[in-house]
């Protein structure tokens, strides 16, 4: 009888994450709040523009005085004077 020494798999940072893309828009502290669930990467960020890659698309948030908060579970929150939110299809 042999015993296998099983190694515990490394916990992925994506555990508990909302994998499907979902976007919420409402009023928050400091202005309008955009919450992007299912974020995969942040391609660009500045106080006037943020590009967040999600599954199959990239979300472009434009505005002024943008502040970013990154949450464990693949959620990204942007707060500020937001002038527009655009969904850019990866294929286009």
């Amino acid at each position, binding site marked *: 009888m042999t015993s296998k020494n099983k190694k515990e798999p490394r916990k992925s*940072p*994506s*555990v508990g*994450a909302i994998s499907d893309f979902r976007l919420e828009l409402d009023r928050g502290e400091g202005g309008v709040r955009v919450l992007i669930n299912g*974020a995969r*990467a*942040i*391609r*660009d*960020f*500045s*106080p006037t523009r943020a590009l967040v890659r999600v599954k199959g698309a990239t979300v472009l948030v434009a505005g002024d*005085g943008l*502040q*970013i*908060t*990154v*949450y*464990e*579970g*693949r959620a*990204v929150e942007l707060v500020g004077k937001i002038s527009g939110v655009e969904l850019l299809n990866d294929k286009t």
Partner: protein
Amino acid sequence: MIRPDYLLLGYYIFKIDKEELARASAAALKEGVTLRFGSDGSFAVSARQGAQVERLLSGIDYTKSELRGLAGFFRKGRHRFGVMAAIFVFIFIFAYLQGFVWDVRVEGEGVDNQDALLSELSTAGLFVGARWGSIDTSKIEARVLMDSDSVSWLNINRRGTVAYVSVVRRELHELPKEPTGYASIVAVRDCIIEEITVKEGYATVKVGQSVKRGDVLISGVLPPELGGGYCYADGSVKGRFSERVEVKIPCSVTDRVLTDEKIGGLSLKIFGFNINILKKYGNLETSCDIIDKKEEITILGARLPVSAEYQVIREYAVTERQLGIDEQAKMALDELKLAIGRENADGDLLSIKTDGEITDDGYIMWADTVVRAEVSSVKEFKLILE
């Protein structure tokens, strides 16, 4: 705003260039770390996550502050044994003192003698300086209710280090005594009868009849047709009468002007013990007000058993001021209204006519009123049997 758990357990403030915000936020997203970036590129990280964030920011220039919050304070002061010891001693003493009664406050309307009640509470076991652990509020409430003549309900509540005693005063009602003997009801003034209500006795006047002061209105001597005999007359008689109400306002008034204010005495009260710091003896000015004041010290809403009591002496100068005619007339009218109200508190004012006159002494104003009010009074009499 820093999170409360960061303040308690310690945190670092990291700062990066604004141009690196994209890289840093992307790294945080990839690692699954929660970070809130400020517009200036700074962000707070808990002490526990400090090393993980440093690894995450590899390749990015950053500055890291020293450990902040309560944990940071203790880390900085770990070599200052005296300061740390003093802080711990203070915390220990403060926590220890929470186990004692710092103040006893009585709440409730109509409690005439608070000192007597506090004395009864003290005898029962509730006093400033008593240990909360040794106080049984139910037993104290029962004992005070048994011993006190002025309290009908009592409840003791503890709020922090203060004992709040809610009290309802006992009200004693005397039963009305039945009248004995004989009496008639007579008029207290000259008037015209408006209304008669007889409960006991025999009415000797009619509505519309004019009577003089002292006339019998309801007799305690019953006529033969009512069976004769004597009784204690009872009833009510209302009459209409005229009267003049007059007021006089002088030509000048005296005003008191505050000229000086000073402290007359100062003492500290600690746990009920009085320590005199400053006391002035001797005759004080006669034209002054002496005000006793008390200042209490509170910390975070808890009142300490330490207070300062002091006297404020206010000195005044008296000056005479002449009144103008308009002012005299206004004051006279106000006084007249009050006087009419006092005279006819229980009656109905049917008509009023006012007039005034300026004299050498001042301004006189009068009102001729017609009033309808109770005019009866009980007059007892005795039988002399020969």
